[in-house]
Structure formats: structure tokens, C-alpha cells
């Protein structure tokens, strides 16, 4: 990248250009029985400092999106097409070495299943320093203790944790270490893929508070992936709903509770237990379609209570149905 295009990119970002723009992302898993379209034409954008949530059933493609933003999709998965623009630069067009530099420094990940995300035979100190060293930012020996101490304190850990092995830490502490590693190079985007799934509720809350605080300190944007609507309501500003590899609704988080447009989102909200109305816990009847032979038309129509003729023929596009509220549905 020349200095000229760099300046251009910065200028664009400053001119209200979104920080991260995903356009028509498609990720297929090639199986002996054909391609499973795990992510099939997803587009969204992220403003600096914004917190975006992605919810959906397991297998709806939300974790695949997280991995493809870091370009960590492994065979038989392939990123078939689309663009991922970070500050105007297409990550999908970068060389492997350029992409490696972007990981952690540009886009960092707080991994799913963070309980096992730390190397069991290395001390916390080494695992943090590894990331710095491989991005050309080794720390002088004298400064190591101070830097690590400050970093660990910022996620609510004592500096002594640096000298410990992962098996000596509790689940919540491990999650904090993973968070500390993720913010160690002050990334612009943090992807948190079900960061609290293995933790108990109290610790979940503490971890989310920590994540919120470091996000605001850094001014980083966050993509939070999960299926806990309560967590989303408290943490994110905008919410995307995934279904069968597609983004079917995208709106400010309050709007999804006030007026869900897509029938799938409606059922999702209706199935939540609530403190005020004591209803039974209802699931959504039916199963999502096979990703291998996807039916024509709307992917949700087989389970949709409002499906009509057009839904079987034509696939609905994501349209802005209310100001700032996008949904893919023929009902509107």
C-alpha cells in the first residue's frame, strides 16, 4: 500500500465512511454432497465505536462470519466471494502475510470457547508477548512488567497473573486474559464470539462489563456474536438476525423488541421468557432448511405462519422498511 492510498483511506474513514463494510459475503463448505452455503450473500457495515450484535441458531452462519472477517476459514470452507473493507481496504484481497498483520492489530478476536483458547503449556506472559513480538512491537525487557501489568489491570486482573499457567486460572480469569490479548494492540474492531458461553451468570455479567469498558477506552467497534437476547439487549446498539446463512433483519436493538418485522424475529422475541408475562417457553416449530439443497424463495417459508405464494417463488431482499430498520420479508 502506498502512502497515498493510505492517506486516501484515512480521509475516507474520517469523512463518515463506515469503519468496516461487509458486502455480499459468501462462504461455502464443500462437502462430498455439494456446497453447504454457510454464509450466503451477507452485507452490513460498522461505524467506529459501534456495538453490533449478531444472533441466530447454531449453524445459521454467525460464527462463520466471525472467522471469515479474520480470514480464518479452513478447508473444506472457502470464502467464495464478497468484500470485507476495513478502513477502505479489502481484507479479502490482501496477501496472507498482510492479513496476518491485520489480525490482532486491526481486527482482534475474543474467541468462542475461550476456556480452551490459551496454550496450556505457556505462561500468560508469553502468550501476550507472542502477539506483540509477531507484530513488530517487541517490548524492551525493562518495560515488560509495566506494560503487562497495565494491560492485565485494564481487564480487571492482578499483574501476578502474568506468571501463571492457564490451568491455574478460573474460567472468568481465562476469559479476561483472552480479552487482554485481544486489546493488546488496540485494534479497531473486536469480534467477540459467544465470549461468555461457558461461564456462570455472575461472571458473564462481569466479563461483559469489562468488555464494554475496554471497548469505550479504546474507541473500538465490537461485533458480539451469540444467541442470548438478554445479553444483546444490554450490550449492543444494533442487532442483526441471521437465518440459514442470510442476514434477515438488521435494526437498532430496541426496535427488534418493539417491532420485529420478519416473522422469524417475531417468533424469536415471542419465545423469550419474560418477567412480566408468565407464559410457557415456546420454541419455534420446525427445523431450518438444509444448507445443501436450499429451497427456492424465502428460506424461512416452511416454518413461517404468514407464508404466501410469493414466498415460494421469490427470495426476499434485505430492504429498509422503517428508517434504519432493514428486513428481508415479502409481507411489507
Amino acid at each position: 500500500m502506498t502512502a497515498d492510498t493510505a492517506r486516501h483511506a484515512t480521509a475516507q474513514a474520517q469523512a463518515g465512511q463506515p469503519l468496516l463494510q461487509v458486502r455480499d459475503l459468501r462462504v461455502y463448505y464443500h462437502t462430498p454432497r455439494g456446497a453447504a452455503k454457510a454464509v450466503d450473500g451477507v452485507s452490513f457495515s460498522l461505524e467506529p465505536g459501534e456495538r453490533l450484535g449478531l444472533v441466530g441458531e447454531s449453524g445459521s452462519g454467525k460464527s462463520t462470519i466471525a472467522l471469515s472477517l479474520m480470514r480464518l476459514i479452513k478447508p473444506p470452507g472457502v470464502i467464495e466471494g464478497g468484500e470485507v473493507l476495513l478502513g477502505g481496504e479489502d481484507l479479502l484481497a490482501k496477501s496472507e502475510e498482510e492479513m496476518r498483520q491485520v489480525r490482532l492489530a486491526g481486527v482482534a478476536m475474543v474467541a468462542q470457547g475461550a476456556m480452551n483458547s490459551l496454550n496450556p503449556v505457556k505462561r500468560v506472559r508469553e502468550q501476550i508477548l507472542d502477539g506483540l513480538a509477531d507484530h513488530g512491537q517487541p517490548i524492551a525487557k525493562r518495560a515488560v512488567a509495566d506494560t503487562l501489568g497495565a494491560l492485565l489491570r485494564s481487564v480487571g486482573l492482578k499483574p501476578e497473573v502474568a506468571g501463571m499457567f492457564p490451568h491455574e486460572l478460573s474460567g472468568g480469569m481465562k476469559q479476561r486474559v483472552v480479552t487482554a490479548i485481544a486489546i493488546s494492540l488496540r485494534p479497531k474492531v473486536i469480534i467477540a464470539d459467544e465470549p461468555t458461553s461457558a461461564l456462570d451468570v455472575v461472571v458473564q455479567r462481569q466479563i461483559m462489563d469489562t468488555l464494554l469498558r475496554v471497548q469505550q477506552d479504546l474507541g473500538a467497534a465490537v461485533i458480539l456474536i451469540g444467541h442470548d437476547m438478554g445479553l444483546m439487549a444490554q450490550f449492543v446498539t444494533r442487532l442483526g438476525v441471521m437465518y440459514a446463512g442470510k442476514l434477515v433483519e438488521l435494526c437498532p436493538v430496541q426496535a427488534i423488541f418493539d417491532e420485529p418485522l420478519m416473522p422469524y424475529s417475531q417468533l424469536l422475541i415471542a419465545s423469550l421468557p419474560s418477567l412480566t408475562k408468565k407464559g410457557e417457553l415456546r420454541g419455534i416449530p420446525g427445523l431450518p432448511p438444509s444448507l445443501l439443497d436450499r429451497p427456492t424463495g424465502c428460506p424461512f417459508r416452511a416454518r413461517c405462519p404468514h407464508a404466501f405464494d410469493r414466498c415460494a417463488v421469490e427470495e426476499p431482499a434485505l430492504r429498509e422498511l422503517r428508517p434504519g430498520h432493514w428486513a428481508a420479508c415479502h409481507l411489507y
Partner: protein
Amino acid sequence: MANTSVNFPTPTLASPHARDRTAPQALLAYCRRNPQLVIGAAMLLGLVLVGVLGPFFVDPKQAQPLSAPTAQPPSRQYPLGTDDYGRNLLAVMVTGLPLTLRIGFLAGALGLLVGTFLGFVSGYLGGPVDAVIRTLVDTSLTVPGLLILITIAASIKGFISVNIMALLIASLAWRQPSRTVRAQVLTLRDRGYVQVARRSGLSTPEIIVKELLPNLLPFLAASFVGAVSYAILASIGLEALGLGPQNDPTLGMTVYWAISFSAPLRGLWWWWLPPIVAVVILILGLLLLTMGLDEIANPRLRRAA
């Protein structure tokens, strides 16, 4: 915080079309997916055929010394040549190969039988019995078997026959199977259907025979092949040191005689090469068979690599 997570069903990648196939077609398709099994079995079958069909082509009596001119290279009359004793080496191969197979299968079967019994007892009963058996197995496994066998065989050198050889090796071949079987029994013991059988009043031997054994069959098959490989390698190792049946031309003894007469240095390649090739085919065949059986016993390993 209330538990607000939604219970999502798991999606399925399976295609809805059930595939209809006849049994032979399914077998063929399976063989294509598990080529190790087929190739391994074919290699072993080939070796067995050498022993079965060989006597129709060559007189086994020529495996005795002084039945041919000495140290002749392969010729039309003696396709594998002859050795310093004047033995027709083709006859030696035809007689010796089945003997080595017999030692392997006999010792493997005995070892598996004892090992399975101990493994079941150890795994199913648990407690002090388990502790004693486990200590015995673990401790003896740290001692290299070949050394124990050398000690024993050296003491009874003049008395070794093919069957004694098999017994001798079986005395060590039970250790590994007992370990594998014990581990498998432990995982099976607490499964639901075994618990149900126990509650419904079946006796311990009944549970072992009716519930556990059928589920262990693939494992036992794999263990058997493993025990046979161990036995064959051990017998050949002992024989190559001269500690085998002195009057029988097993593969290992043939190699031993070739070494003691410096056949490799004198260029008599036809003396030592055929038994080595036979051993390699044998061991490779058993190895492939084990891998193929492992895939049946442990489908989760499939496509792991």
C-alpha cells in the same frame, strides 16, 4: 440476569434423500471407503495361499538338508535357489511360511483369550482385583518383551518346537489386549443399556456375554490382529537370534541361518531376501488390517487425517 437464551434446534447437513442400495453394492462402497482393510486382507490371503497351494508345485521334503546341490542361485529347477545345507529354498518358503503364521495366530489367539478375560475381570469388577491386574500389566509392559523371551528361550533352547514357541510368546502377548479391553469395558460398563440390564436382574456373566461382548467385537478383532502382529514380530526376533525351533525352517530361522553363514556378505541374496520380503508383506498386511479394523471399531476416527 434471567436465562434468556433461546433453545435453537440443531440444523442438519444430511440430505433428505435416503440412499437405497443392495447389500453387495453397499459392501463394495464400504470397501472403497476403507481400502486399508481390503489391501491388508488381500496381502495376508496371498501369503496363506502360498502355504496352501505351494505343496502342489514343490515337494516339501526338499526343505530338508542335502536334498539339492548347495548354494545354487535361482534357476528353473530351483526358483528360489538353494542354501549351504542343500535345501531347496522354495520348499523352505512353502513349509516355513505357514509355520510362522501358525506361531503368530496361535500365540495371538491365546494372548487375546487370556488378555480379554483379565481385561473383563479387571474392568468389570474394579476394586482390588483391578488394582492387582493393572499393576501387573503396567509394570510388565515397561520391560521389553523380547528380553524376557530371550531369557526364557535361552534356558530351553534345545527344546523349542513351533508350538512351544507359540506358548512362549503367548505368555507375553496378553498384556496389550488386557489393557485395551479393560479400557473399553470401563467406558461400556456405565452406559445406559448395561445399567438397564443390571437393574433388570441379569447376572454378571449374562451381562458380559449378552450386552458387553457384542459391542466389543470390533475392538476384539482389532486387538487380535494387533496381538498376532506382536507375536509374529517377537517370534521372528527370537529366531533371528537363533532362539527358535532348531529343526523347523520358519521365516526367522531361515534368516538366522543365512546370517550365521554370512549369506549377505557372500552375495547369496536369494537366501535372505525372500524370507525378508515375506515378513514385510506379512507385517504390512497386518498393519493395514489393524488400521481398517480400527476404522470400523472407532468410526469417529474416520477422515480424521
